[in-house]
């Protein structure tokens, strides 16, 4: 494990160098992606302009929710999304074999040899929107609330990376797993709205098997002092525990799948 960690800076450096070979395309992509999110947020803002609030959430509160959603997602996804989306391709082409013959942890190798700096556009937009939103919402910011806010952000990023890992790991056994990302992004889209507006079965799903309720809604609702359906007073604790718990499950699943790796099948 210590060797694996020692390799991390070298993997990151070599990956960034490959991305810098195409820096024009990368900068354009940062801009295009930020623009696309900004357009969606504008549509939501226009909706709130007409209707005043959504499930009791005003625009400034929605802005905090949206920025938290984007920031937590980007932090987790830069460690995981493209890496584990492309694992299916790697399995089929046999290049995943080359990861398994290295004397470092395959998870560390995959994650950091593809640490996606393409999320910079997301992160800049999210931080900008968040900086505005935290001054607009009615929260008495103290060291403790700020600490909770940061820790829950880390926890939410962990949830993202853990789910992506699990979906990617599934490709090691099933060969295909890309389709599971369609389901992920279905729930991911829901996760940027207040959970209380959804039917109860969806709420249950979002707090259990598809735990993207913890990606933004639960921590932001706790911060704003809004009621959290189903969890109630447990919301604070649950939002902090969700990340570590998801990571533990993700690690177990990853190990199981590595052991049962079948290659491209013959």
């Amino acid at each position, binding site marked *: 494990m210590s060797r694996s960690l020692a390799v991390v800076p070298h993997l990151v450096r070599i990956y960034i160098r*490959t991305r810098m070979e*195409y820096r024009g395309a990368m900068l354009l992509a940062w801009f295009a992606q930020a623009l696309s999110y900004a357009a969606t947020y504008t549509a939501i803002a226009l909706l709130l302009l007409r209707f005043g609030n959504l499930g009791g959430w005003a625009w400034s509160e929605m802005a905090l929710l949206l920025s938290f959603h984007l920031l937590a997602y980007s932090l987790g996804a830069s460690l995981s999304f493209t890496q584990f989306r492309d694992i299916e391709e790697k399995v089929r082409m046999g290049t995943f074999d080359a990861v398994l*013959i290295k*004397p470092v942890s395959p998870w560390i190798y995959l994650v950091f040899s593809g640490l996606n700096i393409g999320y910079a556009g997301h992160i800049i937009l999210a931080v900008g929107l968040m900086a505005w939103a935290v001054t607009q919402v009615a929260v008495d910011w103290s060291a403790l609330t700020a600490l909770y806010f940061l820790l829950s952000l880390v926890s939410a990023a962990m949830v993202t990376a853990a789910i992506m890992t699990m979906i990617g790991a599934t490709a090691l056994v099933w060969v295909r797993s890309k389709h599971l990302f369609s389901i992920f992004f279905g729930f991911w889209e829901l996760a940027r709205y207040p959970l209380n507006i959804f039917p109860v079965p969806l709420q249950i799903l979002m707090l259990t098997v598809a735990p993207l309720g913890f990606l933004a809604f639960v921590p932001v609702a706790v911060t704003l002092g809004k009621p959290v359906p189903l969890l109630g007073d447990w919301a604070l604790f649950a939002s902090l525990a969700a990340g570590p718990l998801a990571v533990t499950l993700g690690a177990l699943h990853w190990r199981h799948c590595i052991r049962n790796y079948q290659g491209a099948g013959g």
Partner: protein
Amino acid sequence: MAIIAASGVEKIFRQPKRQAGLGGAIRGLFSREFTEVRAVDGISFAIEPGEAVGYLGPNGAGKSTMIKMMTGILVPSSGTVEVLGREPHTNRLTNAAEIGVVFGQRSQLWWDLPVRDSFDLNRHIYDVPAPRFAENLARLTAMLDMEGYVDRPVRQLSLGQRMRAEIAMALLHDPKILFLDEPTIGLDVVAKDTVRKFLAEVNRDRGTTIILTTHDLVDIEQICPRLIMVDDGKLLFDGELKHLRQTLGSRRRLKLEFGTDPGPITLQTAALVTDEGLAKHFLLENEQTSILDVLTELGSGHDLTDIKLEEPNIEEVIRTFYQNKPALAGARP
């Protein structure tokens, strides 16, 4: 003690059945049947340190699967594989540090960066001390004639240059065993020759154990004194190449061409197969028979214009194998 020992190894894959036609495809949306494919079927062998072994067989014979089990990528369905006294898949990271692996068709180099960057990353991955790394790099660069391109991006290299770089990269950490999966596939004649000479030298001078899969018999002739031959997941032959020829009776072909038809010719050393008048085809009965023996027996006085000796090619060897399978069981003592 054997450096690699396989005993009764089996590997079974489950593959979905594809049904034909639109109707079949729609049915496939709702249910799927599976077939079991036995890629490796009860294989046992032992390899000693310093050996160079060719693992030969047609496509789909289970060559790559066996390599993947020895390198810890795949877990055998049953039987045991031991590499350097360890089970590779349970000790994958420890095992990985002591072996080198080259995949002929899957590059491990970083496509957009100079070759040197990939090498340097491997130095950190394998934790090679800087002086030893520098020494190995200098030696391998010279031996494989890579001075001209170690600082060029991989995407600009020819296949032959890339393969040399792949092999060098697998040896930078002084592995005890070097596995190569189809290292010469797709290379031109000159590149093939360079790779073969280099591998033979590494095996001879550095004592690195080499296991390579191929379906090119020449790879084996030039690098590997020992040959393991598989087909359909089963071991067909394990022994020396010349022993294989003797066992198989896959004989060399001799073609004699004449300026004027010498009439029928019968020889002790070679059997006539086809007689086209000016061109006559013979099979050499004996591994020890040389062209000189044939010419001596033929004597002078014929208007001989050309002589061609053809080694049996791999397809022929394998075809003969199919026909002689039962006779070959346990060819190696």
